[in-house]
């Protein structure tokens, strides 16, 4: 057992768990679909050969749909201008057209197949000669259409992209907050860190000042950027402001030590790290999360994915933090940490080099469960029409269309199955990870799943 490799051991344990392994494979497939969605569902063909002109419309329109191109048609002896966002490739008399497996994008309105065409119904299109006839098999709406002729299969592909994006990014956000706070709370507890009264005082003062200099005086810049519709830049400004705020607080801490010449302010006091963080977790837990999310979404001027991710991320870190806290409290009292302390290592080294790496692997379990619940929240919100922008097609929004029109059972069943599948595979992966990484965690994670 000299060269025991924990990663290899865990992976072999994980592979023994068949449902988890299969879920992992399905997850890879879903991620593949989400990443390559423009080539899986697109009304722009992958390749067109039009009288000697070789075109790659799906690749050309990756960044923007409103592109134009002009080509010389050899046989007809004329210039043809192509407006990619308006052209209906199905009726273009090209020599060879290679369509994506689903020949529609999620937003594409197929005017010939409106009003809930079932997968088994007769579907029509306008062919090269201008006649309206039955669709050839490769252009089929595999899973039917909705009221305005949008393809359900393409909607599912697009929904997979949105769900995975929101689920993963919001859990990365929640995970980083939860890991950091949980680690601090668990490792330091209530009576490890001491700071002087002056430092405490200065931290409070600079905390308020930090807010003043970032959000009070310059917050309008962030608001203005969002109002101009530049969300990416807005989020960059927002996070920069938070980092500046933290730096100012840190500066306050440093300034505090300058005041040590006053004897009263030199008193050392314990910082109740655990107490503060536990209280914060308790507070967030006693808010009904879904109602909080709905409330915050309601007061936002406009709906965007970024805001949704931010809300889900900021409200769902408590489970991970609680988990990490428990792990750290256990590890803190293990003998090797005690030994490291006795040997005179600094807290920073013990924490990040010895304790943290041992506590992290089990956290992946709660991350997997976290993605499942984030996907559930996202689809629930878009089912209500509150979460994502109206024009965006997601699993939840498709399902809500199906609820309004009962005859279109395919609008209920397929998105519902998609949501069900993705939640199930994340839960199964979570269980598999738990068994592989640390079977003793069974009890703790059972509780965390509810958060």
């Amino acid at each position: 057992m000299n060269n025991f490799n924990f990663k290899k051991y865990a992976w072999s344990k994980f592979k023994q768990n068949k449902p988890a392994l299969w879920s992992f494979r399905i997850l890879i497939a879903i991620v593949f679909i989400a990443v390559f969605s423009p080539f899986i569902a697109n009304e722009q063909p992958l390749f067109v050969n039009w009288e000697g002109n070789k075109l790659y419309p799906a690749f050309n329109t990756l960044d923007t749909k409103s592109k134009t191109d002009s080509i010389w048609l050899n046989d007809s002896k004329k210039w043809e201008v192509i407006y990619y966002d308006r052209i209906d490739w199905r009726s273009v008399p090209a020599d060879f057209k290679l369509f994506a497996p689903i020949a529609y994008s999620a937003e594409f309105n197929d005017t010939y197949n409106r009003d809930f065409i079932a997968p088994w119904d007769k579907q029509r299109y306008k062919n090269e000669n201008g006649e309206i006839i039955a669709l050839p098999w490769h252009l089929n709406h595999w899973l039917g259409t909705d009221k305005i002729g949008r393809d359900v299969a393409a909607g599912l592909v697009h929904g997979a992209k949105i769900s995975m994006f929101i689920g993963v990014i919001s859990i990365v956000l929640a995970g980083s907050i939860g890991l950091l706070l949980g680690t601090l709370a668990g490792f330091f507890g209530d009576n490890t860190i001491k700071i002087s009264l002056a430092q405490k005082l200065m931290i409070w003062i600079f905390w308020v000042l930090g807010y003043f200099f970032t959000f009070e005086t310059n917050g309008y810049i962030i608001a203005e950027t969002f109002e101009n519709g530049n969300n990416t830049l807005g989020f960059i400004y927002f996070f920069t402001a938070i980092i500046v705020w933290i730096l100012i607080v840190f500066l306050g801490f440093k300034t505090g030590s300058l005041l040590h010449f006053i004897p009263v302010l030199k008193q050392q006091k314990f910082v109740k790290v655990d107490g503060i963080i536990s209280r914060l977790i308790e507070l967030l837990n006693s808010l009904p999360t879904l109602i909080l999310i709905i409330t915050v979404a309601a007061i936002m001027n406009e709906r965007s994915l970024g805001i949704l991710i931010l809300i889900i991320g900021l409200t769902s870190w408590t489970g991970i933090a609680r988990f990490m806290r428990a792990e750290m409290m256990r590890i803190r009292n293990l003998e090797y940490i005690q030994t490291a302390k006795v040997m005179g290592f600094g807290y920073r080294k013990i924490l990040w080099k010895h304790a943290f790496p041992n506590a992290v692997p089990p956290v992946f379990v709660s991350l997997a469960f976290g993605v499942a619940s984030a996907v559930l929240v996202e689809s629930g919100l878009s089912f209500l029409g509150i979460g994502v922008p109206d024009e965006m097609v997601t699993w939840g929004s498709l399902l809500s269309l199906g609820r309004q029109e009962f005859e279109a059972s395919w609008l209920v069943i397929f998105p519902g199955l998609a949501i069900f599948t993705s939640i199930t595979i994340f839960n199964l992966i979570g269980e598999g990870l738990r068994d592989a990484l640390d079977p003793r965690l069974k009890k703790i994670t059972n509780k965390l799943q509810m958060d």
Partner: protein
Amino acid sequence: MLLYIVKRILIFIPTLFLISLLAFVISINSPADPVEQLTRAASMEGGVEDKNSAENSVKNEIRKKLGLDLPVFYISMVSWADCDTLHLISDKKSRENLQRLVKKYGNWQNVQNYNSQLIQFHNQVKSVEFTSEQLEISNDLSFLVLNLQQVNHHESIEQNFVEIDNKIQIINNSSLKLAFQDVKKSYEYLINHSGGIHRYLPKIKINGLQNQYHLWLLGDLGLDEKRGKNGVLMGDFGNSYSDNQPIIQKIGSKFFYSFILVILSIFISYLVSIPLGIYAAYKKDQKFDRISSVFVFMLYSLPGYFVGTILLYWFANPDNFVWFPIGGVKDASIYQEKWGVLQKISHQAPYFVLPLITYTYSSFAFISRMIRGSMVEVLQQDYIRTARAKGLSEKRVILVHALRNSLLPIITMIADIFPAALGGSVILETIFSIPGLGLEIYTAVISTDIPMIVAVFTLTGLLTVVGYLVSDILYAIADPRITIK
């Protein structure tokens, strides 16, 4: 024990305070203008005859009642460049605009000057007598000026200036031209003389009891001027923006259905899942356990709105079966208030079947998994082995010795399930159109009825906290070791 309970209650008070603070922050940050919304709601009721003057007086009354003429909180932190009395400006949009300008250029004096020049110019536009051909242009002009009061981007202000210049050229009125020159000059002065360092100098201002939060929380208590409000603590959440009715009255009746559904569903799911969990744990790793585990796991991953929609599709759809009504809680055309309790229940029962199934199954899955887990653990304990060694019957070992201890963690789960069920009720009540709190918050979100959202948020927060409190106390009763810790 009593001490423990008192301690728990004391811990919950700051939590409740923070919930109220959060709710208040949400209510003042809403994009909609409450005065506009309430005026609309009031005028829909009828009673506003003379439009302009009456509307203004109604608006002022509403502002007064909502306390919008007061500062926001007990203390506030502003810069030296900020204005102390900005909250006195009545129109929300222009107030926010002025605020933005102050933040940008850091000089309240100049901003005020610019604003008063604008208002003067607007009054002048109104007072000039236009010929009938010019009427359209003058309308455009006042529209542009009003617009100018609501923009702060440099480009859009400049663009508005150019357009107004053009209009004045067409009208060719020299006094307007002069007045507009003043506006432009004041704007130029504003952008060239920014406040500099003043805007980065913080200042703490103490507003005392006369503030919006105090009025919102405690009502007239301690206020100089009585405004006829009781405050949230006394259950006064104000009036709904959509129909101007008192929120608390609207919520009162809704509360019943939500509460009864949540309680019933928790009760039923406990009733089903405790025997199931125990039996599965008893038959651990046998056929029954494995099948029920898979089944329960599938249920656990099924989103409620999917199940609800499928149930409606099968059992409330003329194409399949019409066993249950499609939504609501009663048939208003048949239902009568004078009916006896039994008749009422028998009339309403079919309406509750599908919602209850949907409400119950997910918490059922969760609870039975938990019970199985804790039972399996208890069955491995030494004292169970002792009990078996003593020769007690298997029934007695499981139902008497093991059950009591394995039920402990289940008590705390009420605290987890209760808020989850309340949150989940938003979606489920929308699907089944049950007139409860969830549907209420949904319709409030759709119509941006902020006081309603805030009220439901605060109440559910309160209920959640109470749920935690109850489960803490129950746990302490069941396991006396807790109180000592």
